[in-house]
């Protein structure tokens, strides 16, 4: 098994001269499930058109943080937060923000693939349809481009009317990515998108993430540190609800500044 240093050492570091503009910024963000505090004082800049990986042991709050970025936590009762999450400088928790349009701009892919019990076409067209697109030609075009971007088009173009449930696990997950892309978001949140997949499907998803970052800002939660090392530009290490360390992936994996980070990435705990 290659070490993380092997994985990242050949990586060209991000050009230092031009700092990327932050797409998402959190300021002293804290999150509570009822009386239990899940996130403590998270201040993080997520750069545009790059992959940011959130790593950390189970229950460290990385998924909670991810779900806060498109307010999916609103669905859970009895939660509240303090601090701000800014998307392009705009507070997403401001009262005048429409959650529905926020979620169209900040798409999400879940750990378990969740195809709807509908045809492949209807799955992809779901987002545009609920947004009010009815024109068949437009929908067909969206479905085709989304499937192409998710590298699934060639495998399913002959059976768009077949059930999405009949696809393999890896295909289902790419379908979910395509479905998230169909609403034309500019941020894509991925919650362990490859944890339930075999190595070949995982590799395809990772290639896909690499391609997608040309156009999208991607935040990915992963348990697999090699995956974080392979696909991400920036890595943030969470532990017990706190952001311990964040930095360029190469630096974080080769020269971690915090003892806890080093212990975690070398496998001493977690």
């Amino acid at each position, binding site marked *: 098994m290659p070490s993380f240093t092997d994985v990242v050492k050949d990586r060209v570091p991000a050009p230092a001269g031009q700092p990327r503009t932050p797409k998402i910024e959190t300021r002293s963000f804290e999150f509570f499930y009822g009386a239990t505090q899940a996130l403590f004082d998270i201040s993080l800049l997520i750069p545009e058109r790059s992959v940011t990986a959130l790593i950390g042991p189970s229950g460290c709050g990385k998924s909670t943080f991810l779900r806060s970025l498109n307010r999916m936590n609103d669905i859970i009762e009895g939660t509240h937060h303090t601090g701000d999450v800014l998307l392009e400088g705009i507070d997403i928790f401001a009262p005048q923000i429409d959650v529905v349009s926020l979620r*169209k701009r900040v798409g999400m892919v879940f750990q378990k693939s969740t195809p709807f019990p509908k045809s492949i076409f209807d799955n992809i067209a779901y987002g545009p349809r609920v947004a009010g697109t009815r024109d068949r030609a437009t929908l067909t075009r969206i479905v085709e481009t989304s499937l192409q971007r998710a590298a699934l088009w060639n495998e399913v173009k002959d059976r768009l009317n077949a059930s999405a449930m009949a696809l393999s696990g890896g295909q289902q997950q790419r379908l979910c990515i395509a479905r998230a892309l169909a609403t034309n978001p500019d941020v894509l949140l991925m919650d362990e998108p490859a944890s339930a997949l075999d190595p070949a499907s995982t590799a395809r998803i990772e290639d896909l993430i690499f391609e997608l970052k040309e156009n999208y800002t991607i935040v990915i939660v992963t348990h697999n540190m090699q995956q974080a090392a392979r696909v991400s530009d920036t890595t943030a290490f969470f532990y017990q609800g706190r952001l311990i360390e964040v930095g360029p992936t190469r630096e974080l994996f080769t020269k971690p500044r915090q003892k806890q980070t080093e212990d975690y990435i070398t496998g001493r705990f977690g």
Partner: protein
Amino acid sequence: MTDKESPQSPSLAGLLHKQRDEGWVFSAACRTAAWSSFAFLTIIIGTILFSAWGLLDWQFLTSYDSRFPARAGILAGLWGSFWVILLTVLISVPMGVGAAIFLEEYSSDNWITRMIRTNLANLAGVPSVVYGMLGLTVFVRMFGLFAKDGFVERATGYRVEGLEVLGISIPLPFSHSVISGALTLSLLILPTIIVASQEALRAVPPSIRHAAQALGATRWQTIRGLVLPAAIPGIVTGIILSISRAIGETAPLIVLGAATYVPFAPGNIDSPVKLVTEPGGILEAPFDRFTVVPIQVYYWVEKPQAEFKKLASAGIIVLLGLLLAMNGLALFIRHRSQKGLKW
């Protein structure tokens, strides 16, 4: 390799043998249980068919009740059952499914919803006669509000006996009309419909709801486009089972005062053709007096003459036919609604 074919050691062979014997006993017991229920049904239907033989003809299906067994028929009961069940479905399905959607998809978990949930389970177990008493007070008599010297007359000085709405005269109180029966049966089957619908909704994986909302669907879009279609087969099964129960109910309708001897069909619609040719009757039917098939059967069984007992058997066969038709319809709707789903 050849050792495998040779007989096992005696102790092991004995063990294997004994295990197989026990399995045989258990499976035979299960088989008997399964077949005995079928046998009982066959015996019941066989006996009733034998008793009804000769009476179950077209004349029986197209005549009203009569003092003469040879001329008596089930027509009033059939039309009564048709109207009562139609109205029951129209009332209880939207209310039941709506309540289930509220409880499962919208309501938060507070003491009120917890109380509603607990009460639903209790209501499903209340004997049907009790619903009959409730219906008698609430729908048939309306607490005596409209009676002579009742609250309305004393408060307004006028005796209100009915309302004219869009040309339909609605009697107040509803008295012993189809609508009273339908409302009572609706109350009777509502808990069952709600609980069955809740279970069907709960069986839809929450991940589907989250995925839809992450795509920017509103809660209502998620429910209408994804959750309800996935839950429809389960909901329809629950509805049909409840309706089948309502078709056979006698006790609450007798308490309500559904008539036993009715020589007419509600709204004077005595053949399907009249639904088209005399549509005015459709609006009158809900407020007409009525009887239903099981009450008709009950009334005939009570009579001393042997011929009426045979008529009762014929009525039971008609009732069973109705139930089978409903179950067939349920299968058909399930099948249809599952085709749209691509699991």
